[in-house]
């Protein structure tokens, strides 16, 4: 029975990990730039990753590298952000995203 329980745990756990992608991505925006932060769930900064910036139609606008502190900056005047931006961070083994809507940009620009 213990063997069975262990097997069931393994069967259940492995795909969970694959789906969970324990990397956290956060992006904040002001009038000038989107600041992206990426870290693992243990708190360590992501040090090697591609940051892809896509528009509302999922068209790739630009790709920027992440800095050693796990951050990246995308200047708003360097991309067409009128339909919002999807920020994807991909380390090769983990990936995650953050969605910035046109309303997020407008709201944070006013404040």
């Amino acid at each position, binding site marked *: 029975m213990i063997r069975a329980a262990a*097997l069931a745990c393994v*069967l*259940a756990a492995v795909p*969970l990990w694959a789906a969970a992608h324990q990397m956290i991505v956060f992006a904040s925006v002001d009038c000038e730039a989107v600041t992206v932060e990426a870290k693992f769930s243990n708190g360590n900064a992501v040090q090697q990753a591609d940051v892809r910036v896509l528009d*509302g139609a999922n068209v790739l606008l630009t790709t920027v590298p992440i800095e050693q502190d796990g951050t990246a900056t995308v200047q708003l005047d360097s991309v067409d952000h009128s339909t919002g931006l999807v920020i994807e961070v991909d380390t090769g083994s*983990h990936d995650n995203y953050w*969605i910035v*809507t*046109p309303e997020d940009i407008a709201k944070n620009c006013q404040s």
Partner: protein
Amino acid sequence: MIRLLKLNVAVGLLLLSAGASLAQDRPRIVTVNYALQYFAERLVGEAAEVEFPVPQGVDPSFWRPSIADISEIQSADLILLNGAGFATWVDRVTLPRSKTVNTSAAIEDQFIVTESITHSHGDGGEHSHEGLATYTWLDPTLAMAQADAIASALTSRQIAPVEDIETQLEALRADLTVLDTEAKAALATLQGVAIIATHPRYQYYARRYDLTVSSLEWEAGAIPTEAQLANLEVLVRDTEAQIIVWEAEPPIEAFEATAALGLRNVVFPPFANAVGDKNPLQTFSDAVSALSNAMAN
């Protein structure tokens, strides 16, 4: 005759425009799963538009919304989250705090923690993560708590008259109580019967009704691969399982393959999204019958 026709057309247009205006004027509520949509609709009646934006056939746990979807959600009057880690997208967007309600906030002490998963990131060394079982509403007592949270959110935002919400909540709680009582009686025959689920969806259900359920990670509604069937055979041998629960009906070949291992097939859609014309309470009731009948046949 022509005058009468014109009058009818004018009245029709007026009614249409009033209907459209009513739809536009009603508050908008967005939910992250079908169960919450159903509860909210029961509670609010016609006083608000309740939307569940995940497309049919897409698993709402892992739905990736578009920017336009998020813009729509951000502009809703009320956003009902399930909590317990359900719907990964909610942690990847900015949601207006004043409009967002976590319907399971009051039952966090009853969450089920899933197995630890050990792995490493680069130089980070080996470490573990714990997850939460997310399908809270499959325990009717937890579903009631979530309905309470929705009612409270509707009341505090004055989305519908308080008396109406209270009446509807009482009716919904009564329905859930009946469902729970019937399930307890029907599933008592399954005590000690090992069950295998094709997906880890039924943890709260199993705990509520004292069922022994092991979970696989099979794709919903698909034919299992040979490797998956081989793993299942080992699991059946080790657990002496007699029932396999599918969250969506697979092709007949899949049923035949599992039946060949001595398993009785039961389909139990966990109503994270809508299935056919049945509401969640009917789906739940049907699944209880199917499970209890599986051992009777």
